[in-house]
């Protein structure tokens, strides 16, 4: 019984760490085009890095059929665009202040982060 409880608690700690505390290091910088694939419940890549103070463009390719994937929302920037299936859709971003902006689907199940930084 002890072991089961220990395993259970380890599982909880694991969940907290894996989903909340861990920050994926995968960041794409603005070298060439930024292309994000929308498929299977995730934005790929989910963390993008762009320089501050310069307008940028992100191209989304939606492959998931589920209507949840059909809209991408940058709620801080008041941008929300529909993504057609299997087509490129470029989203133009204005020049931004440094900071982290999230982009999600309407229901927040797809989540991504846009990191705008000065040191580029």
């Amino acid at each position: 019984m002890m072991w089961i409880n220990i395993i259970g608690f380890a599982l909880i700690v694991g969940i907290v760490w894996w989903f909340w505390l861990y920050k994926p290091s995968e960041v794409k910088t603005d070298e060439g085009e930024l292309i994000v694939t929308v498929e299977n419940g995730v934005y790929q890549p989910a963390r993008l890095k762009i320089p501050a103070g310069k307008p940028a463009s992100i191209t989304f390719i939606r492959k998931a059929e589920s209507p949840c994937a059909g809209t991408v929302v940058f709620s801080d920037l008041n941008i929300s665009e529909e993504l057609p299936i299997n087509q490129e859709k470029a989203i133009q971003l204005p020049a931004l202040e440094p900071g982290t902006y999230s982009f999600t689907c309407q229901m927040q199940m797809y989540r991504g982060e846009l990191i705008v930084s000065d040191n580029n």
Partner: protein
Amino acid sequence: MKDNSTIVLAVEGASCGSCVKKIEDALKAVKGVSEASMNFSEGVATVSGNPLTEELIKAIEIAGYSARSITGKSDDELMDEKETAELAYYKKLVRDMAVALTVGVPLMAYSLIVGEMTVTTSTERIVWFLIGMLTLGVMYFSGRHFYIGAWKSFWNHSANMDTLIALGTGTAWLYSMFVIFFPTLLPDMARHVYFEATAMIIGLINLGLSLEIKARGRTSQAIKRLIGLQAKTARVIRDDKEIDIPIEKVILNDLVRVRPGEKIPVDGIVTEGHSSVDESMLSGEPMPIEKTENDEIVAGTLNKTGTLVFKATRVGKDTALAQIINMVKRAQNSKPSIGRLADVIAAYFVPAIMIISVISALVWLNFGPEPSIAFALVSATTVLIIACPCALGLATPMSVMVGVGKAAEAGVLIRNGEALQTASKITTMVLDKTGTITLGAPKVTQIKVMDSSITEEAVLQLAASLEAGSEHPLAMSIVESAQERKLTLSAINNFKAIAGHGVEGDVTDAENSVAKLLFGNERMMRDYNIELNDAVNIAQQFAEEAQTPMYFSVNGKLAAIIAVSDPIKPDSIEAIKRLQHNGIKVVMLTGDNRATAEAVAKKVGITDYFAEVLPEDKSNKISELQALGEIVGMTGDGINDAPALALADVGFAIGTGTDVAIESADITLMRGSLHGLADAIAISKATLKNIKQNLFGAFIYNAAGVPFAAGILYPFFGILLSPVIAGAAMAFSSVTVVSNANRLRLFKAQEH
């Protein structure tokens, strides 16, 4: 790098055959172009290769023409594509559901009718193993998307609905297989298989998703209707020939012919013909509007009676209709702040549910009755399945989608979700007088002749002749009135305008005698020593009736009092009553004099008004009201009142017809009537109420469902929820949210 693609450009300004070659050469010189050809009659250039569209346009501009890309699909095509894709997805979901339920329902029936699905004998082990493999087939065929989604997002450190379903059904299946392979490791009572749960849940959730798609389709009906207003083709006149071309290919200054019963394809100015045009689909204005030469017409409206030829002034994405569609789409996808909390919760929701599921299993294992492992398994699975992050995530966007669409149908354009939310909370509505409460077009209402030797006609003729030189808006109304009566104006000498007083001038009549004319206010008459006597009382009476009186004298003798008024819109009184009825304090703001302001305010039932407000002071009044803690809406014409509109919590720009000043306000009323204002507020209130119901429902569902699933009732009543029931509840909870949002479509703003 993109593949070899085709770019289509609409080229404007190419008026001769030789331009074709020039344009083609210019295009071919651009890097990456492999082929370029120009169709002269259509005004369209087609380029293949992989050049940048901007560079092509630049090349054409350098060659002396202008161009824009029409490669992009029209809204209509995009909508069709979206619908086809959704239909295909719907069919797939229905098929998946059918397969899963074909396996799940008989198993479920067996467990309910025959009883316990336990594994004791070796025959049972073989039979259940085969059924387990069948269930695996269902998981692969009908539930594959859940598992793949869960797996992919897991490696991305994110979790979503797929994660919950995959974990829930996966756990049930794995446990059942474990029972079959190692029954002896478990106590007798725990040797139970749960294949029916796995198959049923997959079936039910696919059913829920398919119903949700159907319901979602209905939420975008308003935008579909707007897109449907666009004509598909236009008949243009080029080189004296009439050709039918797709509307994307219509270019600026094209002459377009529309016959009776046809939709106007692009915005333009009528050059020929006379007809009445139904603009109700855009403005909500029910009466058709007469159109003749030099009148503006807008795309999407319906030509009713005659044939019109017009010059295209705005085409493609620039037409009023295209802009309206664009704005409604944006607004429909934007979120009011009321939805923020749900977003924050949604972000942490799934991992939190996973943790609750583990805790629930641990509690059962530690404190539960035998077979505790079976109870632990059921409760953990049920918690995972019943939790519905979707209902939470869908609550706000679905209602906003329907509400904004509903408003657009009533001729009310809402900029974004935030404006929608604030509009529902307005406590004070400030209305500009001229053009908002009134028509904004002053008219001569009375001519009171004070000198019996002169006729009314002569008064008007002389006054109009004098005022023809003035630029004052009131002067224009007098000239217009004379024109209406077909009076010919005389030439005026020694014209002089005295600011704040009036105008003077001389006229020579047929007998060559010169008459001295004065036209102005009381102060002017006194300056010139004109005797007024009881005329002042008559003038005062006019002012009390909301008319602006002016004195007219000929040769030093008062000839007449001319009253001008800006008529109140016929439905302003009714609309203001509606606002007040909804508990909104209505305040009027005007630059007019106090007496007229008071009279107008009284007529429309407003007790609070500010008169003689200079245009630049309007925004100060707004701040004053805000300082009192009011949530202030400001309604104005969107051009003169822009600073006040911007400062107000919600700025309403009132348009006339379809002349929309989309950029200037939070909410644009396409119809001139103030009823649009009351409609806008009624719709925003209804939408907010709907959002609250949805959020409340989704919160309660999850907050009550999860503990219930974890077995909180078991110690008291011995009830433990079955995972299958949880699957059904979860599937229908998001359908309920979408359906509730759809209920808004039936809302009738006019009745509130």
